C-alpha cells in the first residue's frame, strides 16, 4: 500500500538555521531517501516552497477567490512529503519514525486510497 508522509515543521526556525548545520540536516534526509530506496519503499519526495508564498483558492457561487499567504498563524507548516510503499500502517509509522524530520517537526502519516476503494 502507498502512504503519504507529510512533513510539518516551523518554517521560521528552519530559515534561521545556519547553512553548515542545514547541510547536515539535508545529508540526513538524503540518507533517509537512500535507505527507503534500498528497501524498495521509495516512491517520491519533494520539498515545498514557504507556505507564506502559497495561495488558497476557492470557488463559491461561480466566483473564484484567491487568498495569498501568509495565512492564519499556525506553529508548523506543511513543507514537504515522501510517498512510500509499505505493507501496513505499522510499517509506514516505522518509516515515519526513522525520518530525520520527525526530530524537528511532525510527520503526518496518511494511507493513499486505492482507485478501487471509492
Amino acid at each position: 500500500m502507498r502512504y503519504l508522509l507529510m512533513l510539518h515543521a516551523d518554517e521560521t526556525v528552519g530559515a534561521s538555521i545556519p547553512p553548515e548545520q542545514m547541510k547536515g540536516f539535508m545529508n540526513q534526509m538524503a540518507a533517509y531517501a537512500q535507505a527507503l530506496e534500498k528497501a524498495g519503499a521509495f516512491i517520491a519526495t519533494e520539498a515545498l516552497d514557504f507556505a507564506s508564498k502559497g495561495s488558497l483558492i476557492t470557488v463559491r457561487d461561480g466566483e473564484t477567490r484567491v487568498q495569498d499567504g501568509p495565512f492564519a498563524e499556525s506553529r508548523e507548516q506543511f513543507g514537504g512529503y515522501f510517498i512510500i510503499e509499505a505493507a501496513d500502517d505499522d510499517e509506514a509509522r516505522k518509516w515515519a519514525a526513522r525520518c530525520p524530520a520527525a526530530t524537528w517537526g511532525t510527520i503526518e502519516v496518511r494511507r493513499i486510497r486505492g482507485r478501487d476503494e471509492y
Partner: protein
Amino acid sequence: MIADELGQKAGEHPVFPDRRLALMLACTHSTVDPAMRAPLMLQVLLGLTASEIGAAYLVPPATMGQRLVRAKARIKELGIRFEEPDAERLARDLPAVLDAIYATFTSDWVCRESRNRAEEAIWLAQCVVAQVPSDPEAKGLLALMLYLSARMDAQSGPDGGYVPLDEQDVSRWDHAAIDTAEALLRAANQCGPSGRFQIEAAIQSVHCARRSSGRTDWVTIGSLYDLLFALLSSPVVRLNRALARSHIDGAAAVLGEVIELGRDPRMVSYQPYWAARSHLAAEAGERETALEIFGVAIGLTTDPAVRAYLMKRRQRLLDG
C-alpha cells in the same frame, strides 16, 4: 480494566500464591497474536494503559486499545484457565513467555521509550525467575538483559553522543548489575545444557570481562556465536558472528559473507546490518562502497545520537 478482570480471575485460585506466571502463560497462548503477547503482559502485569503501550510500539492509543481488547477476547473465548501450571506445561509454554519478554527489551527502532521498556522486561523476567527458580533459560534471559542494561549509561558520552561498546568507559558500567548477572549465569549453567539466552548472556559476560582484563576475547565470542548459530541459524546471529571474526581475521575476510547475508529480505531495513556493513567496508578500505552504505545505515536510524555518530564516521571517511 483488563488487568483487573484477568487479575480477579487469577485470584480465584488461592493455591497459587502469585498469579503472575499464570497470567503471563495466558498472554502467550498460541492463539494470541505473537506481536500482542508482550503488550498484553505489560497491561495485565504492570497496569500500563493502552496509550502508554501504544506510544512504546508506535501505534495510536485507539488501535492499541482495540488490539488489546481483541487479544483479551481470544483468551476469554477459549476459556484459557489460570491454573497452576504443571512441569510439562511450563516446559512447553515458558519459551514463548521468555521470547515475549525479550521482544519487549529489544526493539531496534524505538529509542526514547526503550529504557522504560528495558526496565519493564527485567521486572517481568525477575517475576519468572522467582516463579520457576529451576529454569536455566529464565535465569539466562534475566542475566542477558542485566548485562545489556548495565552498559546503557555508558552508551552516551558526556556530550550526549553515542558511544559504541568497544569505546565505552568501563568505569561507567553498572558493576552491581553485572555481578548479579554473573551469579545468575553461573547458577543457570549448573542446571544443564545451555539454551539460546544462556549463550547470549555468556557472550555479554565476555564483553563485560573487559572491565577487569582491559581487553575483549574475540576468539571466545566467536565460538559462542558458532554455538548460538547452530541453535538458531538466524541471520542476525550470522551477522554478529561475522563481526566477531572480523576482529580476529580482519574486515576483508568476512565482508563477502556479510554482503551475501544482505540477500535475506529480513536485512533490507534492519539498521544494525547496514551499520555493520558500512563499518566493515570502511575498515576493508572500500571507501566508495562504505560511503554509500553509511548513507543507508544513517537513513534507517531512529535514534538521533546514533545518527549523529554514523554521520561523523561517514564524514571522517569523506575527509580521508
